[in-house]
């Protein structure tokens, strides 16, 4: 077994284990740390897929900025163990688990079986050249310039919205 396969299985295992920990942990802070683990392993998977810029952005923006925000809010609100009511226990047992197993199997089945997946599994996937960040930046600042500018306005609106929402009501 070659190195990419070993790396893929290792990272996939870490990612799935992290996602399971997110579900099973009772404390929100444990869920947050598990999600950071998932994001880091996804960043390494992006490197494996040759997308260096996206891997860097994943670590800096997702694992860095967004998750720090989450951890900050968890600590600010002093979120402890989540409470479970009778209703939520019943719903989990009789609706949740069957639905979960069904969804995961169905998604994985169709993703693996779809014609595009089969084509790719045998054909074009073997090209290993990594995407250059220069080409990506050309794309963002030429073909996708308008959406790029729109996201800056979106972020401005988000900043103002967050300020207005978090402000203490008068």
């Amino acid at each position: 077994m070659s190195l990419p396969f070993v790396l893929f299985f290792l990272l996939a295992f870490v990612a799935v284990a992290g996602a399971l920990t997110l579900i099973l942990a009772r404390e929100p802070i444990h869920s947050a740390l598990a999600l950071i683990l998932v994001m880091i392993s996804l960043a390494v998977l992006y490197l494996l897929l040759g997308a260096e810029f996206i891997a860097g952005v994943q670590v800096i923006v997702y694992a860095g900025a967004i998750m720090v925000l989450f951890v900050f809010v968890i600590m600010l609100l002093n979120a402890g163990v989540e409470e479970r009511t009778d209703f939520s226990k019943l719903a989990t047992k009789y609706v949740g688990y069957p639905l979960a197993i069904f969804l995961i199997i169905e998604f994985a089945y169709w993703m693996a079986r779809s014609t595009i997946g089969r084509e790719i599994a045998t054909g074009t996937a073997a090209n290993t050249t990594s995407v250059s960040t220069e080409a990506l930046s050309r794309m963002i600042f030429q073909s996708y310039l308008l959406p790029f500018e729109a996201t800056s306005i979106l972020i401005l609106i988000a900043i103002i919205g967050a300020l207005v929402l978090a402000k203490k009501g008068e």
Partner: protein
Amino acid sequence: MSVVPISWYLVLSAILFGLGIVAFVFKRNIITIFMAIELMLNAVNLAFVAFARAHGQLDGLVFVFFVIVVAAAEAAVGLAIVISAYQNRQTLNIERFNLLKF
């Protein structure tokens, strides 16, 4: 050197997305439900990167970039909503936020 087939990445993405939905349905804490949404966005990003690689086109990576930007904006606004909801109700349990429920 053999290369990992793209469909394996897609299966991993599907499993992560499914686990994200599961977390979204199971969890009672409003912050954890938010984290489940982030997990689903991450799973979709993985599928985007895998497809971009498979087709040798950069458009998928640009989409991932935009998804990350929108997720950042969404997290900022969403957590502000969580904080103001907590100030109103003094709890993070989703079942206590039933003002709009019939």
